[in-house]
């Protein structure tokens, strides 16, 4: 049933319907509305016997989830930006211990300078932490991905991070359908932990592993992640069966099949890009969009299939890899280049939408048009929405002061 509801509220209600045993969180913008709503739902008894722990830090939040999960419970937390960094030590710990925690990241820039607005630097900074990372393109998809996230995490015993753009999605009110309880129950069966703290069957969890076996642990983790691609795809298919809506999966495409120029991106900018594609198609330009829903594990085959044979690919990043940017491209760009290695596709690496700067239709239209006209560099990183005047003034000032 569609209701006019805030994205955060919808995610909180969805998480409650996934029957978590423990929610542990620390407030940080723009994640706050999610945990505020969950706190209400737990207090009102609308989340079963769930315990809500308002901990003293994000590090404490993920640590409490680690304990909750190892004790055999379903655990959930949410954070953003600096909060994700503050729990960084616990991220590979949760994945290494194979604890299927689900976490929402309300994507926000990393400081300094401090900035509470949306980009993807937070999630990208934790790219290699061993978590599955899903990116929602809309609030409806954010809701749906949370149901799929619990299913995927517990099928694989791997934690899952669901990324949704801070403010752009978290604080947007729009018609959203929160899956019914019976639908969620059908998709998220009771949690069966891999190993559990149980006095009847004492086990040691978190032993010290030396050079004789550490590589093998990591090798198995890598294999598991690659196998997760099938599980993520299957979870989306199963979701469509039960709820009747296409959501999630590895990649999404919009009019990309016969396109010459394709924009690749993540998150809420995909909707804007689709609108621009419609406009430009009307104007006779063969353009399309490929959205990466599953960023880690990287869906190598799905991306290659979606992009193979294209003339040009414009990778639009809402995060910058400082020190890597110029020739190889930034983070998503690197993955795309690797994926398309050996094919004649031209890849443009573009950074835009940092720290909450809106990714507008005008900007995306210009990128497509410049790419079509051969005016978009494919040799160095493009800062597409840079205020050249502001940057030049600051460069001149620095030169003057030095």
């Amino acid at each position: 049933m569609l209701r006019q509801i805030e994205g955060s509220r919808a995610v909180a209600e969805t998480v409650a319907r996934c029957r978590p045993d423990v929610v542990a969180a620390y407030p940080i913008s723009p994640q706050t509305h999610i945990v505020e709503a969950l706190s209400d739902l737990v207090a009102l008894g609308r989340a079963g016997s769930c315990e809500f722990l308002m901990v003293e830090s994000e590090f404490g939040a993920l640590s409490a989830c680690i304990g909750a999960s190892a004790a055999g419970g379903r655990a959930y937390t949410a954070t953003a930006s600096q909060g994700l960094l503050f729990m960084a030590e616990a991220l590979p710990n949760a994945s290494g211990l194979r604890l299927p925690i689900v976490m929402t990241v309300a994507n926000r820039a990393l400081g300094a300078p401090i900035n509470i607005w949306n980009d993807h630097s937070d999630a990208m900074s934790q790219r290699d932490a061993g978590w599955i990372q899903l990116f929602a393109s809309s609030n409806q998809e954010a809701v749906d991905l949370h149901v799929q996230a619990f299913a995927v995490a517990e099928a694989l015993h791997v934690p899952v991070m669901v990324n949704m753009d801070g403010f752009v999605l978290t604080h947007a009110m729009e018609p959203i359908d929160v899956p019914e309880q019976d639908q969620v129950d059908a998709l998220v069966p009771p949690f069966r932990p891999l190993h559990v703290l149980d006095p009847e069957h004492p086990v040691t969890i978190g032993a010290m592993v030396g050079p004789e076996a550490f590589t093998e642990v990591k090798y198995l983790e890598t294999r598991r992640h690659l196998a997760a691609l099938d599980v993520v795809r299957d979870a989306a298919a199963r979701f469509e069966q039960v709820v009747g809506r296409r959501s999630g999966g590895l990649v999404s495409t919009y009019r990309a099949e016969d396109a010459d120029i394709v924009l690749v991106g993540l998150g809420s900018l995909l909707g804007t890009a689709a609108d621009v594609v419609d406009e430009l198609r009307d104007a006779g330009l063969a353009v399309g969009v490929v959205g990466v829903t599953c960023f880690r594990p990287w869906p190598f085959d799905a991306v290659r299939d979606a992009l193979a044979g294209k003339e040009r690919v414009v990778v639009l990043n809402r995060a910058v890899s400082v020190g890597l940017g110029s020739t190889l491209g930034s983070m998503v760009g690197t993955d795309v280049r690797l994926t398309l290695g050996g094919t004649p596709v031209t890849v443009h690496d573009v950074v835009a939408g940092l720290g909450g700067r809106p990714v507008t239709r005008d900007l995306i239209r210009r990128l497509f048009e410049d790419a079509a006209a051969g005016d978009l560099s494919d040799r160095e990183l493009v800062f597409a929405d840079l205020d050249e005047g502001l940057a030049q003034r600051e460069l001149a000032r620095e030169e003057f002061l030095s």
Partner: protein
Amino acid sequence: MTELKLYQIGTFAAGNRLLDPADRTEQSNIGRTNSITSGHRACRGCGEALAARVVLDAAMRASDGRMVTVNATGCLEVFSTPYPESAWRVPWLHSLFGNAAAVASGVAASLRAQGRGDVRVVAQAGDGGTVDIGMGCLSGMFERDDDVFFICYDNQGYMNTGVQRSGATPAAASTATTRPVGSRIGNAFGTGKSLPVIAMAHQIPYVATATVADLHDLERKVTTAMGIHGSRYLHVLVPCPLGWGTDSADTVRVARLATESGFFPVFEARDGEVTGVHRIRRQVPVEDYLRLQTRFAHLFGDPGRPDVVERLQRQADRSIAHFGLLEGGQP
């Protein structure tokens, strides 16, 4: 504070055979859990291994075996679980260095949510994982009064990483990062960080200190703590032969001198108020305690630092006065 006046039998030793079976320690029970069993890789004379065995076996008795444990990174974790070996015969979870309290809070909440709230949660950490890197999470656990019994095995330094100074290292002690070189006499004289007093300031139901010199007292405090719900904290002084430079046969002796000199006050508190102290029968000079440890050897060379020894003595005297440790004195 020990209700049994064991010294009446002429020794500080346990003397179980002279006691009624009901008063004997769990360690004298052939059916004890052996929660941390033999074969682990602790150093000879390790105070922490001794304390952990006594604490966990007593906790297992008190909980009738319905107990799980959480362990911070540190000596105890490293010497007990070199994969594929494990010395633990109790359910045991290790996550990180600084998060044992938060992990334990999560375990307790999870058990409650699953209807397994009868299973008790015990968390263990060294002094680094408690008073330094773990303090944020621990304070949060105290403040929420989460149902966890947290034990700090205090060997007064980062022994696992090679004896560096921690927030629990005593003044003037030599460590790898506070060597008595230049004008330095070892670790700085600061205000000292007393986690038991900080724990009391949270007004949690139970706080106690103990040492490996009085195992009856240690077991009794564990039993008391396990009989209470909410946040409980036990701070156990565990001499470290490696880090303190003591003879491995002197672990218990050194711990006893720490108590009998007043340098380490042994007390317990309920809801933030001290309710009992271990009385010192014959106060010994701090020097007797210090001289057994090479980490204080620079105080006794030639010419030595009698002024520093005197400052340490004054610290002990203040502690004795504050807690009313002398027999016949006010508590």
